[in-house]
């Protein structure tokens, strides 16, 4: 995501963001056997949390330095420019989505699904739908992460400023907003009805938490990370989350869960970032950081390179992943939906993501050494 990468970049961020991008791609292909490997089946939180947290972390890391060195106006302008890029990417994805939906909508006429077919009804009123999409009120399923990210970036300049002044106070403020928004049901309106699937007032907390960790917060909790008691409790919680989540998939396993525990836990609300999800992600991060330190030698292992380079170009690879999940679903629907096809589509998608990230790295290297290797430019005749 950042363009000026410092030499001491934390490879763990790119690695896990790269993996999160793969998982998001896999999760977005419905009815895919390969989905079983993704973390959402084994705990409350999923790849969305990883993506939002690391995005907050890197945004604070990169723009925090810019704000210290060049002041809030210059850094703020760069953040807003980034927000604009994400918006353009989102609109581009929306056009691709419309193309696919229009194609399916024109041919789909199975009487069994006459009611569901009404979903294509919005194609009849492009005037409404395009406007609503441009103001981020109409967001097709699987395209709701980028609008969240846009809103978070829009709000980030003042947020970052306060995080730099007083990190703990800013985190506290963000936490209060999270709680109040959950309590009073604050959320942005969606079209045609309802609210945003990713409530920005709730999810901002994870973004700010990531930023806080990047700006020195991680050191503040290092005692927690090293504590043995915390580790034991963490593993207990992760196991509990795993049992509860797997039970959701298997009715027979679900019957074994005592009703009061089921009632305490379910439903686990994604829209408003249920505290169970938040805690689950925080614990996952804690355990990961404990066992994978920043100087972990295997981070340089070539087997991790594919994920790391995807993480380095997260916006582009995220968009590509969404596109590939549409394309993959299209393949499964039109050609074959057998298990071999699902595995094939999943593998091809990840290979394409890695290949594109690799090409982007190559371009970057080309740009970096470009001017020097070019022949000297002729001097303009007139000054």
């Amino acid at each position, binding site marked *: 995501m950042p363009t000026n990468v410092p030499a001491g970049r934390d490879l763990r961020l790119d690695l896990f963001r790269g993996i999160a991008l793969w998982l998001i791609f896999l999760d977005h292909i419905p009815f895919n056997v390969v989905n079983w490997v993704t973390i959402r089946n084994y705990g409350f939180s999923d790849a969305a949390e990883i993506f939002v947290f690391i995005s907050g972390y890197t945004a604070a890391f990169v723009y925090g330095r810019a704000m210290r060195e060049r002041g809030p106006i210059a850094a703020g302008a760069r953040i807003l420019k980034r927000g604009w890029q994400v918006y353009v990417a989102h609109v581009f994805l929306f056009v691709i989505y419309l193309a696919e939906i229009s194609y399916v909508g024109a041919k789909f006429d*199975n*009487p069994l699904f006459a009611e569901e077919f009404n979903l294509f009804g919005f194609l009849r009123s492009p005037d409404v739908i395009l406007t609503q999409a441009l103001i981020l009120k109409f967001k097709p399923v699987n395209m709701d992460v980028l609008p969240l990210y846009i809103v978070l970036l829009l709000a980030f300049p003042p947020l970052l400023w306060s995080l730099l002044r007083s990190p703990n106070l800013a985190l506290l403020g963000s936490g209060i907003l999270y709680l109040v928004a959950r309590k009073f049901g604050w959320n942005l309106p969606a079209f045609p009805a309802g609210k945003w699937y990713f409530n920005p007032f709730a999810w901002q907390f994870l973004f700010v938490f990531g930023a806080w960790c990047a700006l020195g917060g991680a050191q503040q909790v290092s005692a927690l990370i090293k504590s043995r008691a915390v580790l034991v409790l963490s593993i207990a919680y992760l196991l509990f989350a795993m049992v509860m989540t797997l039970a959701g998939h298997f009715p027979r396993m679900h019957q074994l869960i005592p009703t009061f525990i089921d009632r305490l836990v379910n439903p686990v609300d994604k829209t408003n970032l249920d505290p169970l999800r938040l805690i689950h992600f925080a614990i996952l991060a804690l355990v990961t950081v404990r066992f994978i330190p920043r100087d972990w030698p295997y981070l340089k292992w070539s087997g991790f390179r594919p994920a790391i380079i995807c993480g380095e170009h997260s916006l582009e690879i995220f968009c590509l992943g969404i596109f590939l999940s549409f394309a993959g679903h299209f393949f499964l629907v039109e050609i074959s939906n057998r298990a071999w096809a699902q595995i094939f589509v999943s593998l091809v998608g990840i290979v394409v993501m890695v290949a594109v990230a690799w090409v982007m790295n190559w371009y970057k290297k080309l740009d970096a050494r470009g001017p020097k290797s070019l022949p000297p430019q002729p001097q303009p005749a007139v000054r």
Partner: protein
Amino acid sequence: MTRFFALIAGLLLWNGAALAQGADACAVSDDLVSTEVPLPHVAEAVSQAKRLQIAVVGSASSTLRGASGVQHAYPAQLEAELGGRLTGVTVKVVPHIQQGTAADVATTFQKLVAAEKPSLVIWQTGTTDVMLGIEPDSFRDALDKGVQTLQQSGSDVILMNLQYSPRTDPMMHVGPYADAMRLVAEDHNIPLFNRMAIMKYWNDEGVFDFYSMSNDGTVERVHHCIGRLLADLVIGSSKAVQNKPTQ
């Protein structure tokens, strides 16, 4: 990871066992049609009154278009199936097809129950709310109120969730709505007819192809099977009361 593979292997065996049990095209694994939750009013109507009045309240997926659509749709199939299996009992199933959110539909219940006095109301819902993006919490509240109204007026209730529709599911956030229906069913101790899981099972086992762009002749068979499994649920659940009179 080993645990994961063991689980998957167990699951595959499980499905295999279920398949081997019978060549019945409608058959699904046992856990998909659970008959543990009693239907006391149905039991009474069958054993004492010998007259079973059922209302199906649903949206477009509870009927089929065309001149003979109503005949082939699952409510009529359910009536035929129950009539055949409950000898000596007059069975009447009346479909009420309405467009609207769960909250809209729930406002019609009082009138409907007063007019027909059904022993059982099968409430098929969720699709409209998902498509409109009604908040899952509001949807759950509406279900809650609707079921309460029906129960207070002396009817048993079965909730029926959405269809499994692989072409359009990627366009909908179905999960929270399906969860809400399961929880409301548990709260009120009423059966949930898990149409979504059942259709998914048929799809995965290759019984029906739900990817088809147009009607390839399976539509009527699907509704026939839904009617049959509903009959299994109604009869099985009504016996749940008779078997456990002390509960």
